[in-house]
């Protein structure tokens, strides 16, 4: 195995992990604060990709789509949280999962109505086409951009939650929402905000993924199952866990895909099985 190939595989694994992270971290955050496992989360990723396609087609600017599509998706997410989820927080958690499943069906079908059934290609932005040579490996520029995007988002999110007042309020609501409410936090607003932000993050992932994968129906469910595996491995509610989980799953997918091709998925589940046997609440999660 040549050095170039090793470099290629490592970079691929990190780029894949970066995309996974953008989806998984929102899923994890929403669970941490709202205690809701959002089955529709993958559909917001898909919606981001489709909205991104439309913005690029109309304006010609990828960078504009990277801003507009997540904002629109976030607004829609916040609206849906306010009009549906808000009324069933007191129920057993499974009702919230089922509600978001219903929302996923509706949104997926709406995307089909508006954009049609065929996959839509998106060009990478000017300056990120083509490839560069790193340690002998010829590597697409765009994937390097994904690596940077994932890292910057991860660090920014961590700083926001750990170092700002708003982050403090969110962490308080995640830890004990009744106590936070007693101390004057508008928990309902925190929930809406976190849900909207998570949807927007997923949409960032979708916009960023589209030049690589195109925008297609079913991309949401593919990514949500992977993201579930990521958060199960990393532990729900933990950003560091989402990062670690994304790296593990991204690596398992790319290296597994290289060595075993067909068995790539099996390896991902094998890792998950091992983690669950030794730490059922995930690597960085807290035992409930």
């Amino acid at each position, binding site marked *: 195995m040549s050095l170039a190939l090793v470099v290629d595989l490592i970079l691929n694994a990190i780029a894949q992990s970066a995309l996974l992270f953008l989806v998984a971290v929102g899923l994890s955050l929403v*669970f941490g604060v709202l205690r809701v*496992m959002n089955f529709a989360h993958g559909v917001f990723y898909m919606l981001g990709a489709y909205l991104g396609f439309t913005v690029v087609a109309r304006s010609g600017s990828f960078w504009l789509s990277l801003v507009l599509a997540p904002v629109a998706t976030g607004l829609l997410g916040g609206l849906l949280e306010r009009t*549906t989820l808000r*009324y*069933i927080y007191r*129920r057993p*958690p*499974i*009702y919230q*999962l*089922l*509600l978001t*499943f*219903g*929302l*996923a*069906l*509706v949104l*997926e*079908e*709406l995307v*089909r*109505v508006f954009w049609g059934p065929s996959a839509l290609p998106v060009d990478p932005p000017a300056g990120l086409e083509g490839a560069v040579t790193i340690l002998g490996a010829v590597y697409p520029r765009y994937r390097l951009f994904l690596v940077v995007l994932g890292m910057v988002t991860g660090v920014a999110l961590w700083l926001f939650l750990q170092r700002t007042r708003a982050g403090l309020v969110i962490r308080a609501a995640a830890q004990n929402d009744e106590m936070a409410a007693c101390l004057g936090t508008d928990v309902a607003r925190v929930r809406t905000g976190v849900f909207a932000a998570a949807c927007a993050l997923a949409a960032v992932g979708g916009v960023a993924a589209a030049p690589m994968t195109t925008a297609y129906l079913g991309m949401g*469910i593919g990514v949500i*199952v992977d993201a*579930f*595996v990521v958060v*199960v491995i990393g532990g*729900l509610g933990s950003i560091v866990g989402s990062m670690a989980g994304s790296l593990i799953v991204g690596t398992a997918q790319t290296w597994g895909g290289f060595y075993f091709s*067909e068995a790539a*998925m*099996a390896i991902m*589940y094998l890792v*998950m*099985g091992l983690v*669950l*046997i030794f730490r*059922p*609440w995930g690597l960085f999660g807290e035992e409930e």
Partner: protein
Amino acid sequence: MAPLRRWGPVATLVVLAVLPWGLARHQLSLLTDLLIFSLFALSLDLIMGYTGMVSFGHAAYFGLGAYGSALLLIHFEVPIPIALLGGALVAGLVAWPVGYISTRATGIYFAMLTLAFAQLLYTLAYKWRALTGGSDGIAGVPKTALWWGGPSLVEPRAFYFLILVSFLVAFVLCRALVRSPFGRALQAIRENERKFATLGQDPRRLKVIVFVIAAALAGLAGALSAPFRGFASPEAMFWLLSGQALMMVIIGGIGTLVGPAIGAMVFVLVQEVLSSYTEHWMLFTGAIFVLMVIFLPGGIVGAARRRFAA
């Protein structure tokens, strides 16, 4: 409520037994489909409603049953009951290790684990072309006889009665199961697993057992579907079907025996009606489902009970 309780089942049985003579071919096939889904939803409610284990991967066992019976029927032309047993057995056997691992987790984690394993099995069915025919599936599954040299089940009405009897047997079995000490223990686990454990019982062993039973029943439903439709395909293992089964249980009434059947009926009929008007019927089913989750948490049966009790 009391007369409904006494005469309801009898009337339902009579209607189900007489209906095949009053229905067009297409309607009979719809009714048969409906019974298969009722059985499938019933098996899910056994773990979901009575034990509190929400599986988001129940379709995997439906699909395993379908493949099991399809392979037996095509390669060995065994009588249908053998194929049914085979399908249920395959589903139960695969469910055992999956249940063993998944029950390490509870609640949402359990749901996600079952989903992940189901997607794994789905991918396997998709990729293992030599055995499953890949995305094409297995076509031309024959409706063989009731036993070697016995009466043929090719006639739609005959097959309908086979499925009706299978459903009734499964229903009676589930009814006996949830009323048995084993069933009471399951409901105790649902109410408070930790308390159950402190009473010196091992909840996980029981959970694995009921998971395997539910999977075998789902396998039976799948095993019936393969010869009925004439094919088995990976779609039968897809997460969408798992989600639809959850919808049926919730729509009908979670934690009841008739609920899943009513839910399956409503689901299939709504889909049938909507799909004749629009190809985007999923949009409306999804929206109806969202509204039901918000406004009718006990499903149709729960709402009816409240109404009659008041």
